[in-house]
């Protein structure tokens, strides 16, 4: 009954919203903006367009375009040094989850002398960050509305920073930036967003009526549009719905927690560099199947949103239909679905399983039912 809900104070959604960047940063009182992105965003021309819009509004702009997937602490530190040298008074994150996560930390470090490693954990950040605007170019992570950043430390370990300061001042959704996403990225990030909505709704720890409302609305948008954007990546209304659904799923999960799907996906990303969305897609269907008995009622409730207008004889058949619908979405996603196809070696399965139940306990605690090491390993084996 008691809970807290945090969100971004301002969200702008519009095809062509990139053009608003100048007005937005001026409104935040920023005149020297560091744009944080990856080389792909530069070659697509998005970074150049953002820079031009900001400069036209009278802002000076510097670009840090070296963000890598699963960004390292070194990358974040390098960007923060550039921000300080440039005397940035605003940060724009433009790109996928990695760029947004990096931009959030850069906005914190620009105004602070705290070493990055002192921020690892919950609420360690001191001082006040510079104005921060986040613009996602994938419909997946929801990073634009979450207060967590995940980076990789020099020991190749994932480190998470949790701080309300990581929520941006403004999240801007411009679906035009997502029209060119390749089908595999569209599929992986879209399924990732669906996982956020589902795991938020079934969370055993911090599920609440606000996250529930956002999760169900997100799931209906994502469920009814994923196949459309996979069939035609230029379908603007469907791309818009995916971006909106991803944002709402982000608002839901950051306030409710994710669970076992994420727990099982993390080692696949850390050890085998499988992109986060793809890793989630791999384990999604088997984990839902594993949870089915414990989560029957909630999956039945979600069936009404994923399969609107369908009638079910009882709760069990609604829940079964929900899991089947997800299984078929995953099967049709065009992603490789076998670990062996993705260079995962068999001996690693047991190692990853023990990592999940020990190292990522926190997420298993939010799963509708518990999972032991043997059960995790069996799930990995099932998709090997």
């Amino acid at each position, binding site marked *: 009954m008691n809970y807290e809900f945090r969100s971004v*104070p*301002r969200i702008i959604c*519009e095809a062509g919203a990139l053009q608003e960047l100048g007005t937005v940063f001026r409104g935040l009182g920023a005149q020297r903006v560091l744009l944080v992105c990856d080389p792909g965003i530069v070659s697509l021309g998005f970074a150049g367009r953002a820079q031009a819009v900001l400069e036209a509004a009278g802002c000076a702009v510097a670009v840090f375009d070296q963000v890598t997937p699963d960004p390292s602490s070194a990358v974040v530190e390098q960007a923060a040094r550039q921000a300080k040298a440039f005397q940035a008074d605003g940060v724009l994150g433009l790109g996928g989850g990695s760029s947004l996560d990096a931009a959030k930390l850069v906005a914190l470090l620009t105004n602070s002398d705290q070493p990055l490693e002192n921020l690892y954990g919950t609420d360690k950040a001191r001082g006040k960050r510079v104005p921060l605007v986040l613009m996602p170019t994938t419909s997946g992570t929801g990073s634009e509305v979450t207060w967590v950043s995940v980076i990789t430390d020099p020991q190749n370990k994932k480190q998470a920073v949790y701080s309300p300061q990581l929520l941006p001042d403004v999240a801007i959704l411009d679906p035009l930036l997502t029209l060119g996403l390749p089908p595999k990225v569209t599929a992986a990030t879209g399924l990732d967003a669906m996982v956020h909505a589902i795991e938020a709704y079934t969370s055993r720890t911090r599920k609440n009526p606000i996250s*529930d409302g956002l999760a*169900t*609305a997100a799931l209906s948008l994502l469920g009814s549009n994923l196949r459309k954007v996979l069939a035609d990546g230029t379908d603007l209304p469907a791309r818009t719905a995916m971006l909106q659904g991803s944002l709402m799923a982000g608002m839901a999960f950051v306030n409710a927690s994710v669970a076992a799907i994420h727990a099982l996906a993390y080692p696949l990303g850390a050890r085998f560099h499988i992109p986060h969305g793809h890793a989630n897609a791999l384990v999604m269907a088997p984990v839902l199947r594993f949870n089915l008995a414990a989560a029957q009622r909630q999956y039945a409730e979600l069936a009404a949103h994923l399969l609107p207008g369908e009638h079910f004889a009882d709760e069990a058949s609604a829940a079964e239909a929900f899991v089947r619908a997800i299984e078929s979405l995953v099967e049709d996603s065009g992603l490789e679905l076998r670990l062996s196809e993705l260079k995962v070696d068999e001996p690693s399965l047991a190692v990853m399983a023990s990592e999940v139940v020990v190292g990522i306990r926190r997420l298993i605690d939010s799963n509708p039912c518990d999972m032991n090491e043997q059960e995790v390993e069996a799930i990995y084996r099932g998709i090997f």
Partner: protein
Amino acid sequence: MSKFTFETTPRVICEIDGALRLGALCRELNAERVLLVSDPGLLRAGLLDAPINAMRDSGLQVTLYSDVQADPPVACVEDAVAVARECRAQAVIGLGGGSSLDIAKLVALLCGHEQRLEDIYGIGLAKGPRLPLIQVPTTAGTGSEVTAVAIVTTPSHEKKGVVSPLLYPDIALLDARLTVGLPAAVSAMTGVDAMVHAIESYSSAHKKNVLSDGLAVQALTLLAANMDRVLAEPGDLQARSNMLLGSMLAGMAFANAPVAAVHALAYPLGGHFHLPHGLSNALVLVPVLNFNRPAAEALYAQLASAVLPGQRFASPREACDGFIDFMTRLVARMPFAQRLSEVGVTDADIDQLTDDALKIERLLINNPRPLDRDDIHGLYTSVL
């Protein structure tokens, strides 16, 4: 199509007895000296004692301004600002109904940045920064804790509004314990008011968007399921908590997708006959729903699943009927006046009421079905 801006309060805390934690929350906002804005009724009821004592025990200097009246006059803002300056308040807490929260917003604004109230009536004219602001509603109705508007009455008896994103508080704190003593009639009126917010936001002809829709549906679900329970069991904390939450979610929705004809027809009733805002809304709700049916059938049909979860309808038309029927029955069993003649309105007043309602064009344009003078006249007459 899908172009929108969504703004809201960045942090919501739902917690039974959360008001006893206000001291810690003020500290998080770096405030040691605090102005608490409330009304004489709450003071007399003793509702302010526990929160004030808890704050003082935590070492905070608390000054109380408890003279807020219903439909607060400008003088009330001026008095409260003088008290805030006198005690050098570093933060403002609004604790009460919509009027107290509105005054708290303006005090935080005027003490944070030197400006004259009469210069900032209208949209976006206020200048920041404002003082840190925490809003604690004690009725489940207005949603003022998550809206960007504050209304005052000028010496010439005009209602003037300040609209600015600066008026969103830092924290909205929902403490159901504060609402258990609400009289049945107040619970009913404010509860129906909150339902009207959700309904009008969902069917708004302007600015309706996926986020406001998701929040409105969740709001209406909570409100419909708990309205009768709080009347039957006023001390039911879970039901009270759900009503507060529903009211807040409806506030988040209508702050972004504005209300329409129910409110436009309600305001003149409040102005001329000094009816509580919730009662004015409740009196005209059902006639307006029936009037809107031809234009809003599909939308009302969608809301049927929120108020009648699990019920199946053969067609959108039947679902729409089901929704209107549900609202009609709900209003009819509420413990307050059902007809205008019961609250002193006579046939001779209808012309004036109609003229006044017609002037509220900013709300009428949001109605799903356009209304002319005859329509409005007919609607008032039908509930005389």
